[in-house]
């Protein structure tokens, strides 16, 4: 038995949202809620899904933990390691590259001090992650932070505006089932 002291628990608001989502699928197909519940888990527990959090997801869905691990490791949106307060997902695919995503990545590495694929910046604010096409090619280059797209980041001003908006966020934006957003997690490198 694991100790209950360290065991993560969903908030009441998240539990209600999970219950709503599970009703969208046939009773015996509760596993279908895997991806939506993993998204909720990542938002609830500081932007990543630890093995303990994944076990909780398995428990909620009534599946074996391995069924969650094999899914969380397949889909790129789920962070399996601790991250900074803000994960900057920089699109690196062709159309963004044509409009300067390589330069944007270098610029963000310089400004934040974080490296793509590496740990969060020393102040714990930013994790940089390169991702594939975000379906915003006409507004390239593009960065996604949680549910928000920052587009046409081809000027110093547009990048500065994004970073200052993020620096000023104490809590992450509230999700539809929440009254307020949760405090942003502090990176634990």
């Amino acid at each position: 038995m694991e100790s209950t002291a360290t065991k993560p628990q969903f908030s009441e608001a998240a539990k209600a949202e999970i219950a709503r989502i599970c009703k969208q699928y046939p009773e015996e197909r509760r596993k279908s809620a895997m991806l939506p519940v993993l998204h909720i888990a990542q938002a609830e527990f500081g932007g990543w899904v630890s093995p303990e959090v994944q076990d909780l997801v398995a428990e909620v869905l009534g599946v074996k933990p391995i069924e969650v691990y094999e899914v969380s490791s397949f889909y790129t949106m789920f962070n399996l390691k601790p991250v900074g307060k803000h994960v900057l997902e920089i699109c690196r695919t062709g159309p963004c590259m044509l409009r300067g995503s390589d330069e944007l990545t270098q610029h963000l590495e310089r400004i934040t001090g974080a490296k793509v694929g590496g740990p969060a910046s020393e102040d714990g604010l930013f994790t940089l992650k390169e991702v594939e096409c975000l379906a915003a090619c006409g507004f390239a280059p593009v960065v996604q932070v949680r549910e928000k797209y920052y587009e046409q980041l081809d000027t110093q001003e547009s990048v500065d505006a994004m970073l200052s908006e993020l620096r000023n966020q104490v809590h992450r934006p509230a999700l539809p089932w929440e009254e307020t957003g949760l405090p942003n997690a502090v990176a634990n490198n």
Partner: protein
Amino acid sequence: MGRKLLTEHINVEGIDTLEVYRKHGGYRSVEKAIKTMTPDEVVEEVKKSGLRGRGGAGFPTGMKWSFLAKPDGVPRYLVCNADESEPGTFKDRQLMSKLPHLLIEGMITSSYALGANTSYIYIRGELLYVLRILEKAIAEAYAAGFLGKNILGSGYDLDLHVHPGGGAYICGEETALLESLEGKRGNPRNKPPFPAVQGLYARPTVVNNVESIAAVPVIVNEGGDEYAKIGVGRSTGTKLISACGHLNKPGIYEIELGLPVEEFIYSDEYCGGIWKGRDLKAVVAGGSSVPILPKELILKTAAGENRLMTYESLSDGGFVTGTMLGSGGFIAMDETTCIVRNTWNFSRFYHHESCGQCSPCREGTGWMEKVLHRLEHGHGHMEDIDLLVSVAKQIEGNTICPLGEAAAWPVAAAVRHFRHEFEWHVTHAKEAAQPGAVYRAGAVLA
């Protein structure tokens, strides 16, 4: 000025609310279909319209619908493929976020035609903000009686849900999408059985792209024959083109199929020409997986005819001198673009996105990425160029799903049309490896 069948009202303020959408004729197709037509009559109109799948494959939608198995007492499903991930393509995101009710209306009318009582919109996980928009609009549709039990007093019931993915290009392949919707890894299934017989939860299922579903309301309202009058030959109706890359005015354009490519690129009504006064070098016309064409071949066919934005005209010449309309992801590259670097970038994408199930794709995409990386970075050999073509050939046709072809075609086409650039990367390895270096008639441009 072409007709706008889907996007006429896209910039109307408040069009994302049911009230404003209704004022502009929204949900008429639901009323017409449910009150005055049988499901088969709706299918018949879609067949007559000639509508072809707008996700990329171009398979006739009405025919796909008619393949749906309908055993008694077995539920069947309509699943909308909103996993838009093909590089260069961003039309569905725009359509759903600005006109959520158009997709919902299309889902209701189409579900009625197919006899589905539960339908899903599978949207890529990165678009969670669009999922929120859709869920809000769906709640409005329930409140107005367009969803739920006994829709418009007809006795027909429908529940509609939105399901997010988790970041995987492969889930745009319809059987991988269904696996994902069942809460599993997105590994494509062996076919047969096809989804029309055994799809979601092993039940008969139709999977259609967002834009295909969004075309159903206008087809039902105006009739399939009217819809088919727009366009050229077997390319009927309008198509959303996502224009990106080195264009003056990138963005989404709804065009009547048959528009000349040259007009699309250069006219001020559309893309307004190439940025910074530069010359066009090449175009990837239908999303990253279709063959790249040099300027001369995208504007005119090998026979010298004007190339049109139609399924047939773009594929004229096969893969020797033609390409495909695909998803309508139109990527323009100016004269300063390095084709080797761009091809390497796309190969890295496909390697990253291969699900790993079939060895030719899992290994082959990795090989192509590595070989292209060394060519781009000045460590390539002359025989690498033929090696690329050979690996691409060995992937093609040897995988469960079309990701293999999607990875192989761009590489084969880049070598076919731009072999001199690959050779230059070997003969001028040092120069070619400089950042921003580009082959142009033997000169290095920074």
